[in-house]
């Protein structure tokens, strides 16, 4: 049986000044249509690299990515990316930023009026209709990220790729954005891969959490199924034992088992050293 998106034993080696650097070693993830996957792991382990390979911005050295059985080897709007730092054109208005993408993707299939309506519709979806004519400099960080998401959604991608979309936001804005994203996801049921550093965010949003081991030669350490009913409510979940169990699983992995994927959970020997490392790497245990 073949999955919707198949990240098939992907390895990548970068040539560096100090010789070749093997960043990913046989990363294998299968994603079903409509699934929400989070990628979590320590900083520098290669999460962005995985995402960029799926996006086609990087080429795997070994293995490959299949989307609906077709090999991916160049970037395209069917795998839209929401970048960490929003990546909006500073000289274009909010509307024009989204419209640029809409014009390019639906050049032949939609009329001008339809493209205009589609642009407005997607900005409506992220609650940005009030600021169509503003430039990115004139809106807040959270708003910029909303526009980035609207632009990606407007491409009607088969897979939506998000690289720490809320990483740069303050925690209050981040919770708002997570709620918005869940609401959009409930309506559109996209296939999403999202990188995050935030354990709560991962558990709250995902169907599955893919935990990566530390680099170099990072691989998939563990995959956690999050069987919480949707729609999810962060307040109700805070006291839910299942939610806290999932959360604890992720935290345990990040702090105890991330070095060797097969090591038992009680391998306390090196856990103490790694704890401080985990903090430095910016894993947010409490958000």
């Amino acid at each position, binding site marked *: 049986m073949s999955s919707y998106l198949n990240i098939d034993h992907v390895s990548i080696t970068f040539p560096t000044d100090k010789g070749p650097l093997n960043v990913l070693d046989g990363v294998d993830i299968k994603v079903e249509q409509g699934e929400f996957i989070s990628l979590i792991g320590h900083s520098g382990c290669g999460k962005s690299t995985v995402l960029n390979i799926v996006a086609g911005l990087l080429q795997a050295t070994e293995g490959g990515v299949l989307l609906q059985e077709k090999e991916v080897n*160049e970037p395209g*709007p069917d795998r839209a990316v929401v970048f960490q730092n929003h990546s909006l*054109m500073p000289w274009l208005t909010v509307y024009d930023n989204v419209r640029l993408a809409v014009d390019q993707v639906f050049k032949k299939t939609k009329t001008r009026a339809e493209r205009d309506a589609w642009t407005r519709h997607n900005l409506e979806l992220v609650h940005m209709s009030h600021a169509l004519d503003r430039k990115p*400099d004139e809106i807040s960080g959270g708003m910029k990220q909303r526009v980035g998401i609207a632009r990606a959604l407007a491409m009607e991608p088969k897979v939506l790729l998000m690289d720490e979309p809320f990483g740069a936001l303050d925690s209050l804005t981040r919770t708002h954005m997570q709620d918005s994203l869940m609401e959009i996801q409930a309506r559109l049921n996209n296939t999403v891969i999202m990188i995050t550093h935030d354990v709560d965010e991962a558990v709250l949003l995902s169907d599955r959490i893919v935990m990566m081991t530390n680099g170099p030669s990072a691989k998939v350490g563990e995959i956690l199924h999050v069987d919480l009913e949707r729609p999810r409510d962060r307040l109700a979940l805070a006291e839910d034992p299942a939610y806290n169990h999932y959360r604890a699983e992720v935290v345990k992995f990040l702090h105890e088992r991330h070095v060797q994927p097969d090591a038992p959970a009680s391998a306390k020997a090196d856990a103490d050293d790694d704890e401080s490392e985990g903090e430095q790497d910016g894993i947010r245990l409490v958000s």
Partner: protein
Amino acid sequence: MSSSLASRKTFNLPWVDRLLNGLSSFEFGPKLQASVKAAVVPVVAILIFLGLWSVGAKQVQTSLGQFPGPAAVWDQTKALWGEHEAARAKEAAFYERLDKRVEKAIAAGKSPERIEKIQSRQYTGPATFIDQIFTSLYTVGAGFLVASLIAIPIGIVCGMNATFYQAMNPIIQLFKPVSPLAWLPLVTMVVSAMYVSDDPMFDKSFLNSAITVTLCCLWPTIINTTVGVAGVSKDLLNVSRVLRLPFLTKTVKIVLPSAVPMIFTGLRLSLGIGWMVLIAAEMLSQNPGLGKFVWDEFQNGSSNSLARIMVAVLVIGFLGFLLDRGMLMLQRAVSWDRNAVVR
């Protein structure tokens, strides 16, 4: 009336109350202070400069008399303007006479060729100071425009294509430090050899000056455009890759707009250098323009010459300033980078 003023209440003098009231409500905010300061400081500075100039000038004796102070320069400014108006009047009179002669010739039934010959006569008075100003502006504008039209595309390609940049870089680095005046003899010879036409559209002297300006305006624009284009954010380029923007769309919609601030930095540098070089080139090669005016006055050596040269110096400075301000305004109008303090 506010309670704070009650203590200052004066007997039988309600207008003092009103005055005090008015003064206390008047906003001596930091904004007003700043704008008064901004207006006063330059004026004071200029007054001090004029004072020092006039005192200093009196100490300097040259073979052409005393070094001109502000008063002498002002007199010569008026004199130059007067000469210009006189020349204009003469020109108008010339064409009036010409028209009359044409009418007479038509009345006398002369052949059309003859009439045309009379009509085609041009006024050929000496160029006034004002004429020279416009000649220089026109020349620098033409040279700068041609240079920009060549340099911006080269800079774009250099910035987008590493191989082309590697190819161009040694050439740019070699010619950039060359004073364009060193080119002047070559340009003059090449123009006089190549530009042979019975009905020339441009004067050769104009071409010499303009090409010299072009040669020095190329480099700052090429270099800054290259830097601007090469510095386009990698994330924005990734966006364009995800969207699969065609090359032309990518260039027009992403690369150019993000390079615009740097391109204009280059253009402003170029225009500034071009203006300085043009004056020198005009002096050196006796091409019409402000440089020739300065040189002619120097050769002329009358008692007014130094003051007239000083007028030219001030005008050159002021026009250079205006050109730069013009570019700055253009840059502000087209630049998206509002955070950058452009001065």
